């Protein structure tokens, strides 16, 4: 079940930015951190199911575009009202310039 899925090319995401990735009827958010690491979380905010990829990445925080709820995208931890439920995270690796995520 735990397949690695190609999400995008490493260069598709700017540093300190996020991109939406849809796969198998699910939606994910793929992040590139300021120190050039890649991360993946569920794509929808746990407050009102809004796409986090429209939000702003600052250091290790993704801020929801709708009401500014915050998560640490590296751990999925909810970091600021109104969100209180954590985000699921997924393992990520970069191989041959491709960003792969492991969808459980």
């Amino acid at each position, binding site marked *: 079940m735990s397949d690695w899925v190609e999400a995008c090319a490493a260069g598709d995401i700017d540093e300190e930015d996020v991109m939406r990735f849809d796969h198998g009827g699910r939606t994910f958010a793929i992040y590139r951190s300021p120190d050039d690491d890649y991360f993946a979380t569920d794509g929808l905010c746990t407050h009102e199911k809004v796409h986090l990829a429209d*939000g702003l990445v600052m250091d290790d925080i993704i801020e929801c575009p709708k009401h500014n709820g915050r998560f640490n995208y590296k751990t999925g931890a909810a970091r600021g009202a109104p969100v209180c439920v954590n985000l699921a995270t997924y393992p990520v690796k970069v191989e041959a310039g491709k960003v792969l995520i492991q969808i459980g």
Partner: protein
Amino acid sequence: MQAGMVIIGAGECGGRAALTLRELAYDGPVTLVGDEPHLPYERPPLSKDAMVSDAPEIKAIASDAMLAERAIRHIHSVQAVAIDRTAHTVRLTDGSVLLYNKLLLATGSTPRRLPMPGLGSRCVYLRTFADALAIRQHLSAGNRVAIIGGGFIGLELAASARKLWAVVIVIEAQPRILMRGVPAEIAEIVHQAHEAEGVKILTGQGIISIADDGTEVCIALADGQEIVADLAVIGIGAVPVTGLAVEAGLTIDNGIAVDATLRTGDPDIFAAGDCCSFPLAVYAGRRVRLEAWRNAQEQGALAARNMLGAGEAHAAVPWFWSDQYGLSLQIAGLSDEGKSMVRRDLSDGAFILFHLAEDGRLVAASGIGPGNAVARDIRLAEMLIAKRVKPAPEALGSQDVKLKSLLAA
């Protein structure tokens, strides 16, 4: 009785304050008093999703379990009626008396009443979940809804009512909708969206009289027209709830007046959220009262920190959003501080207007577009406003210049 932290008003602000006190590991008694029968809940959905749902539910800020786990005592359906500042007590309608070390007034605001005779049971206001349920019953295909006042709550309600195929008319006394705080260019987009969805909007229309017989409302307009509706919803602004503070002899100035740390003239009494006016640091201490959800949340948390002695000054930039149909509007800062505007076009017809002061400082940004198209740039604008920068207008106007790069500069 052990004295502790007492919060009056179990809304967004009061609820957040109580949770924050516990996050900060305060271990004395925390009592949250509210006159509504519910857990603290979010109001913004009341004019949006909750209005469209077949079985509206409250969106609670904290569950009973969360409150119990944190030993937050929530007294509901009871009003605070008097504060004795010398004895440090608050008396409630059920006769009980609470002893406080620090008191937070988070009493919110209440709809401004239409000062006109003839209003009956078919003329209603929208503030609470109970109000929303009552209105929801009247929203069905073909039912006629008149909305008095083209402000945010009325317009969001109009959009929700259209989703349920009600026949909707909006009556606005001003020459255009969203006159307060929204630039004309953006109000025009909202206006067009409503008309495209079949809402009739009458602007510059004074109301002469209203007759409500309990089944129908008849609204006579200045130009001689008569509007007949099954329900009239009045949305002409809100006024702060200050009765308790007035009685207690606290200073009122367009709301309960507090300093930058949200403290009233009494060192043991704080006020926060919709009910208070405070000096806004980003605009040289201009005294304002905000009716905005994030402000209620931020001030609730700040008041909690300061009740515990942090002495921290409010520094946030005002921020507001509204959703109507697929459109989302976001405003950071107060646009009336601006003297000139620069427009930045984004994808999908979304755009942002940057408001600049005379000296070129960025003081506000107003954006509108589908979905969350403007969210990221408005958030960056908010940070630029907080930094009090004077960005080059050409840079603000150009899609090729990332706002994030201006922040780093």
